[in-house]
């Protein structure tokens, strides 16, 4: 019924097609309703809910230790940073000070997660615009980080390594050696990425001037992470509100002012360099000490509202807990970066072609389970 009324309002040249939910360029089960005139896009309507698992509702059922493993399944590419966000929120509420060792290890693993996430994004981004080689090269280098995680945390993707009060267990004896190996390896590989893809004129023509987003629009749509920073909006939570050991390291915030897809691409490439710099500063002097603070077996948060934000690979993740003093949260809300970044897709894609939509959507770096939760 609805379709017929829509059709009556259409002009004769316009038609609409479904992109997704099973489309390789949407990287998951995202359905886009495209209104198209010829090949020019008139309107993009994202349709969500295909992978909704009601994580926020499940959090109301679970204890604070159990919530952490659910956040692995939101933005699975930066799962360690999601874990950290919940743990920091609970620790701040309980006013626990975790040891320096924990802070440093959390930061190192968080930055490695960011490199792994951007690495995968680079491979998939190349594939979206037709360069298949990038996919294999990115996965070759990401494999090393996954091995580090598997050895220390026990899993490759859904680590659940952080617990409120510290870490589940100490780092593996090989951890430092392997991270150093990876840094030296990746420093020779990252310039190859530029030779292979960034400097390619054909690739640049696909990206430059596509998906323009001004700074004003980035702020009003709530963009964060590399999407906001590609438009000159300085929004790095690591700089503005440092958490864990990030106040002890020096790094530059990757910032571009062009606001097109290529600017967002360059921001992520530079962030990989910056993350490597952060890891290098911390890896040599991980302080000795405990990896965990003893907490009660049943954690009860004091009555009140608590908020903690962190910078995941996609942008600002906020954890908002309302506690009534029991062992479960009364309400737990995640402010996910992917949802706000998706909301501006219509704005940047209108007027372009379908090929440009794929290119600009790839630079938004959407992870659908993060959007639906």
């Amino acid at each position, binding site marked *: 019924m609805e379709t017929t009324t829509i059709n009556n309002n259409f002009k004769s040249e316009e038609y609409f097609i479904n992109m997704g939910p099973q489309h390789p360029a949407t990287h998951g089960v995202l359905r886009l309703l495209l209104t198209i005139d010829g090949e020019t896009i008139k309107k993009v309507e994202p349709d969500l809910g295909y992978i909704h698992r009601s994580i926020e509702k499940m959090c109301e059922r679970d204890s604070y230790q159990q919530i952490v493993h659910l956040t692995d399944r939101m933005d699975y590419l930066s799962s360690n940073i999601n874990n950290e966000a919940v743990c920091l929120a609970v620790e701040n509420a309980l006013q626990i000070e975790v040891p320096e060792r924990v802070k440093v290890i959390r930061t190192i693993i968080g930055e490695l997660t960011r490199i792994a996430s951007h690495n995968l994004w680079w491979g998939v981004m190349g594939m979206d615009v037709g360069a298949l080689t990038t996919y294999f090269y990115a996965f*070759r280098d990401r494999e090393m980080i996954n091995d580090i995680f598997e050895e220390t945390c026990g899993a490759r993707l859904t680590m659940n390594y952080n617990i409120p009060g510290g870490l589940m267990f100490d780092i593996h004896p090989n951890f430092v050696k392997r991270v150093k190996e990876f840094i030296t390896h990746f420093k020779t590989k990252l310039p190859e990425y530029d030779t292979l893809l960034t*400097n390619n004129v054909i690739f640049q023509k696909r990206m430059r001037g596509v998906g323009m987003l001004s700074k004003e629009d980035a702020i009003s749509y709530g963009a964060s992470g590399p999407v906001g920073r590609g438009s000159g909006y300085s929004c790095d939570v690591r700089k503005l509100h440092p958490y864990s050991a990030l106040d002890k390291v020096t790094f530059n915030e990757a910032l571009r002012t062009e606001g097109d897809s290529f600017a967002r691409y360059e921001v992520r490439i530079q962030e990989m360099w910056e993350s490597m710099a952060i890891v290098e500063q911390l890896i040599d002097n991980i302080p000795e000490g405990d990896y965990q603070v003893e907490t009660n077996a049943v954690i009860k948060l004091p009555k009140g509202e608590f908020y903690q934000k962190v910078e995941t690979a996609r942008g600002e993740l906020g954890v908002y807990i309302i506690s009534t003093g029991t062992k479960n949260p009364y309400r737990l809300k995640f402010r996910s970066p992917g949802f706000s970044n998706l909301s501006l897709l219509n704005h940047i894609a209108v007027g372009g072609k379908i090929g440009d939509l794929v290119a600009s959507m790839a630079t938004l770096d959407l992870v659908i389970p993060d959007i639906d939760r």
Partner: protein
Amino acid sequence: MSYFSDIYKGIKTLLTGMSVTGKYFLHSQKGGITQQYPDNRETLKMFERFRGEVVMPHDVNNQHRCTGCQKCELACPNGTIEIIWDRQVDPETGKKKKLIEKHIYHLGMCTMCGLCIEACPTDAIKWAQNYENSVYDRTTLTRVLNKPGSKLMPGVED
């Protein structure tokens, strides 16, 4: 004129990029990166912390360390672990003691979060590094971790 220079630039950067792929084509990494998975089962070894499935180690006398305190059952976020227990008379002291009858583990529901193993006070359960968990019938994923006829190791208290 810019049309031809664009073509020239395009081909030039394409060849620059292909020099990278060509380098790997001619000088492939020693041994290669791809693992020949089903063929290398004999040599493929997981890391010692790898989370494959939860198991309960038994010693040679068929004794385990589980006291039936149910802390793992409580720690589990999604009801993967079920413990059926009973109070039995201990022949040595004559007192009634909580002993497990069955420690049931539903592998199909497990999210490998590791909270049960963290919670266990007697190290009765641990991770196994088994990674081939696909089966034809999901009922085979429900496992009883304590072996039939097994007993509690003497001296283990929670």
